[in-house]
């Protein structure tokens, strides 16, 4: 019997190695796997590359992981947030590398990784400093730049519902990066608000089929809070 549901955070975070690239979903605090990020903090892996839309807020979650010196490099589109104090302090001190990526290019790099596309051409960023050092090609009269796929060793996902096969649904804007993070990561770990019996999620409503999911932890925390 396939059962991807794990009972403890230790099981959810087992075997995560130093030096991993970790794709973290979330936009604001909606659809952000905060409990799994805390689990990663507890687990202890270091020298991490984190890819996420934002670079953390306050002194919790991703910001806490960075504050503990566990993140070597962050790949994001918008390092500013309501309270980006940890990131900005580390960045100014030269203690963290930053790769800024346009948000759509970030999403497409993750999607491409999940789809087995190693790189793709895009018009986004042409003529800007994002294009510096990148391969340019003219296709049908328009100039494009080559962007690499962004693969995760680990993907952290927040779902609304999950079953033991790892089939997932999401709630409203909580979907954001979650389905593509699940596709692009070698090990996809999910925190879910609800566990459903196999067959109880209508097949038409499953957004992420379980093939993209490895471990599911039940975390019924309720509604997202501030941003």
């Amino acid at each position, binding site marked *: 019997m396939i059962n991807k549901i794990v009972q403890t955070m230790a099981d959810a975070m087992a075997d995560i190695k130093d030096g991993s690239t970790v794709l973290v979903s979330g936009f604001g605090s909606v659809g952000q796997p905060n409990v799994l990020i805390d689990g990663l903090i507890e687990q202890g892996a270091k020298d991490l590359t984190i890819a996420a839309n934002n670079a953390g807020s306050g002194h919790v979650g991703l910001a806490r992981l960075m504050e503990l010196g566990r993140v070597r490099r962050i790949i994001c*589109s918008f390092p500013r947030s309501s309270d980006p104090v940890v990131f900005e302090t580390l*960045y100014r001190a030269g203690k963290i590398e930053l790769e800024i990526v346009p*948000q759509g290019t970030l999403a497409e790099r993750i999607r491409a990784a999940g789809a087995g596309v190693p790189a793709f051409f895009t*018009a986004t960023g042409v003529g800007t*400093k994002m294009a510096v050092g990148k391969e340019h090609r003219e296709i049908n009269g328009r100039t494009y730049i080559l962007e690499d796929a962004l693969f995760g060793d680990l993907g952290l996902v927040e779902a609304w519902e999950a079953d033991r096969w790892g089939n997932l649904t999401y709630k409203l*804007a909580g*979907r*954001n*990066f979650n389905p593509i993070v699940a596709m692009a990561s070698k090990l996809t770990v999910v925190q879910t608000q609800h566990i459903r019996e196999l067959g109880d999620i209508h097949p038409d409503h499953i957004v992420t089929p379980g093939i993209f999911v490895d471990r599911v932890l039940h975390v019924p925390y309720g*509604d997202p809070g501030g941003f």
Partner: protein
Amino acid sequence: MSATTAEFKPFSRVMMAQNVAADIPEGWYVNLGIGIPTAVADHVPLDREVIFHSENGVLGMGPAPEKDKIEPWLINAGKQYVTLRAGGSMCHHADSFAMIRGGHLDLCVLGAFQVADNGDIANWATSENDTAPAVGGAMDLAAGAKRLWVLMEHTAKDGSAKLVSKCTYPLTAMAAVKRVYTNLATVDVTERGFVVLNMAPGLTFENLQARTEAKLHLPA
């Protein structure tokens, strides 16, 4: 300058948003950038069906919710609570940006630091050495939407021109802007350069040119 300033009345923030809203026809799919552009939606009547998109996977956004009807799982790209209209839908981030990058949006309205008369836009950083530059979805929107309009003050807080012959700030996209709405005028970006469509009441063309670094043209 004060003598001439007294002769005209700049468009207020509300009027600027109204000017943009008046030009959006029913049926368009529209993304409004963070800041002044967000207010444009307030001036499109609900019976004119314009479908608003937000980068975080929301299509068919409605007005802001009443305080006691907030849905904590429904926010826009500015991380404000929003509502969904009947017919609204959710998608993931890559699909949402496929709407943008795939040329499916009829219009995007962004704020800007500078717009050049060849359509170049600079709206994400004011220095090459910004400590931690944040680009978000601006480059995708500027390069991907069918039309890019800019909504901004005509001049910067220090009085310097924002409609320029060449952007001095880091670019967001090249040759992307089609029209600019400011507190002083509405200006099209054409092969001739900036063409003035509309001016604040009482403002003369010469007076507008004096506040604009790039050369302005009257409609042919």
